[in-house]
């Protein structure tokens, strides 16, 4: 009973926050990017809570439950993911998106590479795989509610999907960011609380390792239970990289760079997101290991965390965990749906079908997609539900392989052109799909994500030679986005006392440039 009460209070709170911030959306830039006013703390937590989905409570723990310490390849990459993403793309993407006047990550690529085809292919990849990703979140919500409330899976799924969709369509980007911020806090508190309880039950990490060693010593190996991946460095590296650099290819995550208050926001946000990651990321993987010791006969490994909460720590901890899981699912699902809807409305509908579409019409198109994905997700989940781990890793990997190279090249290489970018996007996506569908990681010992990334980078390098250089305007924009480089050796003679004047003069020159 207490689970249901806490869950309803939580939902009411999130709906209120969403409603409060949705009233501030006045322009299209407000609706899609929160008016580019998001500060470092909200940027960090919305980025991390969006990045960490229901996967962290289901797929991650299930992985360690089945494979032991092997799962920590994924976790270790994930801890540094936020920092890598903000440090490599943050400042430059924020600057360039504003210079180009881009409001969605796909529009940004189109304007940077001066190519309509990028919009068509990019939108297609984004909408399909963001939808796959969100279906993983729907399934996670259904499973969670089923375990913690006892309702049948179909009913739980309907309620979970209904809540997510109703909540997403109620507000714009600013509402999504602020609800993500609070959900990020709930997630870390819930997860960390359950971790401490769990570790106290098994005698800490030492006790846990002793218990695992007695059951099967290979649980303690980084190469998986039964040494399944013994010395398969291609798999290990792919597992490490997928979450370390994969976020740079996710449209719903990189849009956070575009909405930051200023390029400097990235630096402080990187610190906050790393602290949050250190507290949060390892916890679900350790809980998966605790599950081996406390619930060795569990049938569905993806239910290890809800089952731990329900059976081992009933009552308030179970309620806390339910809200944390739903926070993780909802904070990711709303961003995915928001992004897929924005891409459909802005980059497809307005770009190709109705250039003079009003904001009301665009919001309607966006909501139509949200509804369609919801219906399709329910049908798929009821008929033949895939595992949360499988669908999330597949969608995540395909999005990452499609977009990482074009996004990085856009701000680091001024001669990157549309031919190179298109080749990287298409080859990356196709490689990941073929590798996953054919289970080629088993025969090649190379993770699908790593394979897609290598192919995408190689295709970019080869095909970029065949395209024409971007226009001078774009090259200048990229140079401006790279920021001013202080000439070598000049740092040693700088008069630090002049910093305030230099800052004010920089602002004066910027304003003068705008006026001119």
């Amino acid at each position, binding site marked *: 009973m207490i689970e249901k009460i806490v869950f309803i209070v939580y939902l009411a709170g999130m709906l209120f926050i969403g409603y409060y911030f949705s009233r501030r959306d006045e322009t299209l830039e407000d609706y899609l990017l929160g008016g580019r006013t998001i500060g470092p703390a909200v940027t960090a937590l919305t980025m991390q809570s969006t990045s960490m989905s229901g996967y962290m409570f289901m797929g991650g723990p299930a992985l360690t439950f089945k494979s032991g310490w092997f799962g920590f390849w994924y976790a270790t990459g994930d801890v540094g993911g936020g920092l890598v993403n903000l440090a490599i793309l943050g400042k430059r993407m924020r600057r360039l998106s504003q210079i180009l006047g881009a409001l969605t990550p796909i529009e940004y690529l189109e304007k940077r590479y001066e190519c309509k085809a990028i919009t068509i292919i990019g939108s297609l990849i984004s909408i399909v795989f963001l939808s796959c990703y969100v279906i993983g979140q729907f399934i996670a919500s259904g499973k969670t509610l089923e375990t913690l409330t006892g309702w049948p899976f179909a009913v739980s799924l309907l309620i979970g999907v209904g809540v997510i969709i109703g909540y997403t369509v109620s507000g714009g980007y600013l509402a999504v960011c602020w609800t993500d911020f609070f959900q990020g806090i709930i997630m870390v508190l819930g997860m960390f609380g359950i971790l401490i309880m769990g570790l106290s039950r098994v005698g800490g990490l030492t006790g846990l390792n002793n218990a695992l060693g007695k059951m099967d010593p290979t649980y303690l190996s980084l190469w998986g239970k039964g040494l399944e991946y013994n010395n398969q460095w291609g798999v290990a590296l792919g597992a490490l990289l997928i979450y370390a650099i994969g976020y740079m290819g996710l449209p719903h995550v990189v849009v956070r760079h575009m909405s930051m208050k200023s390029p400097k926001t990235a630096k402080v946000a990187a610190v906050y997101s790393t602290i949050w990651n250190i507290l949060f990321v390892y916890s679900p993987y350790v809980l998966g290991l605790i599950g081996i010791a406390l619930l060795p006969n569990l049938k569905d490994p993806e239910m290890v965390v809800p089952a731990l909460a329900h059976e081992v720590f009933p009552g308030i901890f179970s309620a806390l965990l339910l809200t944390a899981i739903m926070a993780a699912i909802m904070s990711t699902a709303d961003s995915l749906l928001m992004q897929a809807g924005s891409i459909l409305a802005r980059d497809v509908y307005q770009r190709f079908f109705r250039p003079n579409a009003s904001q009301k019409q665009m919001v309607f198109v966006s909501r139509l997609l949200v509804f369609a994905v919801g219906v399709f997700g329910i049908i798929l989940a009821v008929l033949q539900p895939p595992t949360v781990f499988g669908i999330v890793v597949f969608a995540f990997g395909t999005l990452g392989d499609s977009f990482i190279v074009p996004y990085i090249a856009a701000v680091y290489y001024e001669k990157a052109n549309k031919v190179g970018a298109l080749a990287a996007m298409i080859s990356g996506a196709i490689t990941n799909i073929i590798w996953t569908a054919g289970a080629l990681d088993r025969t090649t010992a190379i993770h699908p994500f790593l394979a897609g990334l290598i192919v995408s980078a190689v295709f970019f390098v080869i095909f970029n030679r065949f395209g024409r250089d971007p226009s001078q305007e774009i090259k200048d924009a990229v*140079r401006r986005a*790279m*920021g*001013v*480089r*202080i*000439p*070598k*050796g*000049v740092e040693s*003679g*700088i*008069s*630090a*006392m*002049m*910093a*305030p*004047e*230099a*800052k*004010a*003069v*920089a*602002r*004066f*020159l*910027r304003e003068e*440039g705008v006026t001119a």
Partner: protein
Amino acid sequence: MEVSIPPKCFLLKPLIREVDATCSLEERYPGVTQVSARLIYYPYFGFPVAIGSPRGSRPSPLSGLFCSEDTGVPERISIIVDLLEGQAAVTDITREQLEAFGPDPLPHLPFALTVPAREGFPPGKVLDARITMDDANKTALTFLTFIATKSRRLRRCASEVTLGAPVLILKPFWIMEIQSHPDNSKMLVDAVSGGYHPILT
């Protein structure tokens, strides 16, 4: 924003010419060459400071900017407040470095004011102020209290440290565009001291 200004306005005489600034940068950093240079004037409020005697007797007359002419007391310290960023600092500007400037009385800030060409220096635009006189007063007072705690002498008579009426000071700077591999960059050069700082636009 309209900022009322004190009746007195002074110009800090530029000493570093364009060619000097260029040579200095080129000598120090081979490979760096100047592309263009532009003179601007940066506004500050200067506050003279009255300091109480350490023996507890009456405060000495206002020290610092322009007080020596009226009182005969040697100039000591003044506080200047940057009118764009609102930062305060202790200054050692002396009367000899300054000259009276501007129509009297000046209009309210910001004003489209340009200091005309003079003694081999080109004309220079005065940057628009963003800080009001009230805010500058508060900043200067807070800063004075802060530095009073750092000095044993000032600490003993901190209650008797007061600010005088401010004056407007315009300080010259060069904005220099320099060529360096791979891109051009901008440098702010103090036209009085020759100090410099990169401008990160």
